[in-house]
């Protein structure tokens, strides 16, 4: 297989590393009488930890809890319903990331609408949405702007491109989310006992190492910036346990080759130019003040929420416990629907269908029926 992957998942490196993690976790257990517990903030981490087998190999010694890091999963149901309803309008082309297509709305999915004849396009390269608008001047092209700090810069690039090309029929339905407010919410709520966070390498490229200092200064909890390959995940967990054992909270950058102290300044300039903080509603949590970014009023022409109104009723109530999964309160298989009524073919909640959803990761990689 691929050489790079072979290096990062070379058994001669990874297996001793896993043993070292188990060893230091046992030391933690001897000292504190329990397993160390860490939350992986990011959905890509959730997937990687499950896919590479790290979570399974460490399951007896380390408690790895999935956090609110899957952008589709944390989007509240009313907002999902609104995006699906948006596609019902005439003369529109809805462009979206693939993750959104099968997310269950209260009545149907975007995929159902596409099958019914609505023009809904999954883009591999999101900036293509601007090209779609240019090629279809008689249609309104709306991009569904779901995402965290990794995705938001791409949305601003799209606005920049539409602005430059003076495209009047392009807009974004912004429902973006920020990492810091939700981490603060979880820590303030104090529902989950954690010894630290595994912080996502790619988000950190944008934010920078120093942006997490509030975790240490205000909450006395550590965070380790961690990559996504097997050896990187293991070394991130090792470092997390080491910090927890030391009793000293700190932010550790385990991804220093690509994550700088202050993040990507060019991206920050873009964000500052086009966007402003806004309140956002989170699934299972409710509205968190200033937890998202919306377009500044001077860019209203690109703001789909200002240009289109959609009517959605009260979201359908289900027994789906995605909200608790997102907050790290229960593991996916503790939901009564998991693997029974809720399945990748027939998902009840977004966590089962998103490429980064905890339930999807658990279903795909961690069922132990053998």
């Amino acid at each position, binding site marked *: 297989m*691929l050489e790079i992957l072979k290096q990062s*998942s070379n*058994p001669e490196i990874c297996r001793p590393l896993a043993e070292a993690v188990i060893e230091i976790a046992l030391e933690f257990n001897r000292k504190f009488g329990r397993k160390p517990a860490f939350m992986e903030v990011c959905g890509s981490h959730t997937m990687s930890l499950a*896919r590479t*087998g790290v979570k399974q190999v460490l399951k007896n010694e380390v408690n790895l809890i999935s956090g609110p890091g899957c*952008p589709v999963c944390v989007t509240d149901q009313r907002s999902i319903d609104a995006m699906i309803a948006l596609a019902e309008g005439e003369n529109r082309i809805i462009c979206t990331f693939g993750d959104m297509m099968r997310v269950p709305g209260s009545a149907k999915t975007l995929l159902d609408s596409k099958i019914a004849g609505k023009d809904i396009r999954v883009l591999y390269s999101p900036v293509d949405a601007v090209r779609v608008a240019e090629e279809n001047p008689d249609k309104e092209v709306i991009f569904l702007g779901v995402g965290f700090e990794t995705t938001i810069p791409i949305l601003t690039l799209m606005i920049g491109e539409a602005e430059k090309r003076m495209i009047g029929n392009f807009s974004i339905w912004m429902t973006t989310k920020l990492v810091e407010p939700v981490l603060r919410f979880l820590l303030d709520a104090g529902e989950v006992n954690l010894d630290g966070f595994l912080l996502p390498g790619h988000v950190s490229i944008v934010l920078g190492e120093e942006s997490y200092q509030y975790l240490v200064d205000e909450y006395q909890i550590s965070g380790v910036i961690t990559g996504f390959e097997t050896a990187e995940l293991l070394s991130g967990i090792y470092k997390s346990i080491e910090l927890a054992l030391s009793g000293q909270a700190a932010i550790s950058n385990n991804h220093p080759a690509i994550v700088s102290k202050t993040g990507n300044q060019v991206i920050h300039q873009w964000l500052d130019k086009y966007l402003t903080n806004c309140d956002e509603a989170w699934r299972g949590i409710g509205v968190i003040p200033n937890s998202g970014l919306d377009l500044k009023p001077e860019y209203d022409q690109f703001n789909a929420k200002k240009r289109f109104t959609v009517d959605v009723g009260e979201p359908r109530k289900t027994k789906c416990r995605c909200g608790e999964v997102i907050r790290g309160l229960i593991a996916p298989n503790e939901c009564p629907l998991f693997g029974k009524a809720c399945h990748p073919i027939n998902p009840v909640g977004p966590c089962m269908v*998103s490429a*980064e959803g905890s339930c999807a990761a658990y279903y795909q990689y961690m069922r132990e029926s*053998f």
Partner: protein
Amino acid sequence: MEKYISLAHGDGGELSHRLIRDVFIEAFGDGNAAMFDAASVAISASKIAVTTDSFVIKPIFFPEGSIGKLAVAGTVNDLAVSGAKPVYLTCGFVIEEGFPIADLRRIVTDMANEARKTGVKIVAGDTKVVERGCADGVYINTTGIGVYEANIGCSLEFEEGDAIIVSGTIGDHGIAVLAARGELGITVPITSDCASLNRMLEMVLQHTEGVRIMRDPTRGGLATTLVEIAEDFNLTMKINELDLPVKKEVHGVCDLLGFDPLYIANEGKAIIVVAANEKDKVIDLLREFPEGKDAVVIGSIIGKDKGQLLLETPLGSKRLLTRLSGTMFPRIC
């Protein structure tokens, strides 16, 4: 001749006649068969294999292949992995009004070339034209007939320890086609693996004993086909992640989009399950052919009771692989 297909090309009149004569018979050769409503062909076997497949690929031309090459190779491979020697093909075309006849010629030429290469004859065909907008360019159906030779074939008698072999790198076709659509926004130097495998697989069957089953992992990828074998024959199969042959470009695109190469389509690969003591011989035979040069053992049968496919990760943990569930969509980040 006209430049574009019109509805008149499908109405059975003069234009239909010209299209058959100047495009299809010109390429496929056997004009006599076109004089009758059915082709009469000779078969010398007590048992035949029949398979049919429809091809609806977009784009119709892609690096190292086309819908035409695929329509022959795909059906030939279905026969070949069944242990039959492909002898005859039929083809049915559904063509959208306005389709360029030059492109149709190119497709038909690809079919003729691939048929020649594989030793199969295209003996019957049909053409229908639908109004513009009612089809996407051209769709092709091919039906294949193969003959079984005495004492040659797959035993279907599995044993613990049997080796699972794949004849080359996985995911090439799916990624090449995705890239050829021009929607990725990146250039990917990957070509489709679309190829007929009958000569290579005939060689394996003729020179080895102990081949249990052969399958071609097309849609749904390697994992889906292996799950089908495991379930159909109630086998517990294990493959090793580190042994999976994946080109670095395919791995890169999959990593970027959140796809898994195990579930990406192939069009020129075979899975062969063979007795452990014959695996080296099979690998040596496969590697004599360009389409088998990267053949490797990827796993083995570890039990005959659970109908499961397991993947062993580099860390040594095992996880269950299931069929592809729904279309793979690119992820957000």
